[in-house]
């Protein structure tokens, strides 16, 4: 048994015999085999090899029966109301967080404020207010400390004590907005005189 000198064709003979070549290649090899005794002999030998190993009987059903079952991952479709509820919860949470951040005191103001509505004849109540502020009116955030008396009613000792405590405050704005900022002192000297008018 001799070998054909065309190694490329010989290399394709097993695929030719098993029909694994594309049509054009199959036709090319077939035409070569038709003219080449060596390749024809080798192709026949390859067919014999393929036939020489018969396939044992297989029971496909029994093989399949022993295969594992696929781990199917179910796709949970969320009901619309769940989506809506989640969205509402998210929005509410976000709003709460923003509100909390918004209430964070960035300044604490101390001052004597005059309550609204006291510009009439009635004597206004002069108030020492230590107020937190987020940029709005310090009075709007409410007085934290009120003497509840007119300055004119204070004794000299009380006035000196009040002025002394106010003088002790640093008038300069703090770098940290969380700390006490500028004390606001509203015309403490004129308030009594205005009351006297």
């Amino acid at each position, binding site marked *: *048994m001799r*070998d054909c000198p065309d190694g490329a064709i*010989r*290399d*394709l003979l*097993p*695929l030719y*015999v*098993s*029909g*694994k*070549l*594309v*049509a054009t*290649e199959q036709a090319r090899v077939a035409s070569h085999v038709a003219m080449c005794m060596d390749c024809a002999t*080798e192709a026949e*030998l*390859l067919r*014999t*090899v*393929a*036939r*020489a*190993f*018969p*396939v*044992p*009987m*297989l*029971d*496909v*059903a*029994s*093989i*399949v029966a*022993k*295969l*594992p*079952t*696929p*781990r*199917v991952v179910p796709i949970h479709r969320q009901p619309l109301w769940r989506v809506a509820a989640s969205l509402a919860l998210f929005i509410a949470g976000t709003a709460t967080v923003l509100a909390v951040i918004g209430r964070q005191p960035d300044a604490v103001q101390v001052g004597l404020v005059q309550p609204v509505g006291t510009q009439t004849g009635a004597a206004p109540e002069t108030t020492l207010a230590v107020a937190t502020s987020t940029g709005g009116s310090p009075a709007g955030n409410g007085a934290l400390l009120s003497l509840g008396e007119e300055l004119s009613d204070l004794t000299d000792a009380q006035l000196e004590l009040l002025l002394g405590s106010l003088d002790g405050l640093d008038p300069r704005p703090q770098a940290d907005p969380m700390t006490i900022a500028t004390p606001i002192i509203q015309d403490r000297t004129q308030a009594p005189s205005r009351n006297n008018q």
Partner: protein
Amino acid sequence: MAPNSSDERAVDAALIERWKAGDQAAATAIVERHATALARFAASTGERERIDELVQDTFVRAFNSIDSFRSDAALRTWLFTILKRLVLDRRRAERRQGVHVELEPTHAVQSYNALDSLIADETAQQVRNAVAALSPMQRDVFMLRVTDGMAYSEIATVVGSTEGACRVHYHNAMRAIKEWLSDDA
């Protein structure tokens, strides 16, 4: 070279996806597509008994680790690789127990006696003897090339070698078989 290798891969990939989605019929289709070739290869390696069990174990192992299968590879090549590993495992186990003897030409004659009624061709018997006389590597490469029409690159994956080495193994095997048959004649 193989005309429909990409189509075959696409079909296998689609069947795998169907099976993953719960379609058990897809598993049947996969087994039907590849079981015969696997059994033939198992027989050609010298396995004489429980070939169906080998094929079954191959599929069970494959389906158990189907998630690790890369869809860009050929399922058939992967299955052959698993089968080859199982054959080697079985031989090691049998060797430890002193059961298995590597396929020898004379052994091959005896081992296929049961099949002689099916293959009454004397030439076929000579061919089996010649194949049995090959080295295990030559035999695996040769049989994968001849009975399954595998590309050398795929064979290299199955037997754990290189494409060029597999080409050399194939042609050496063919030469050895021709010589065996010439001497036997």
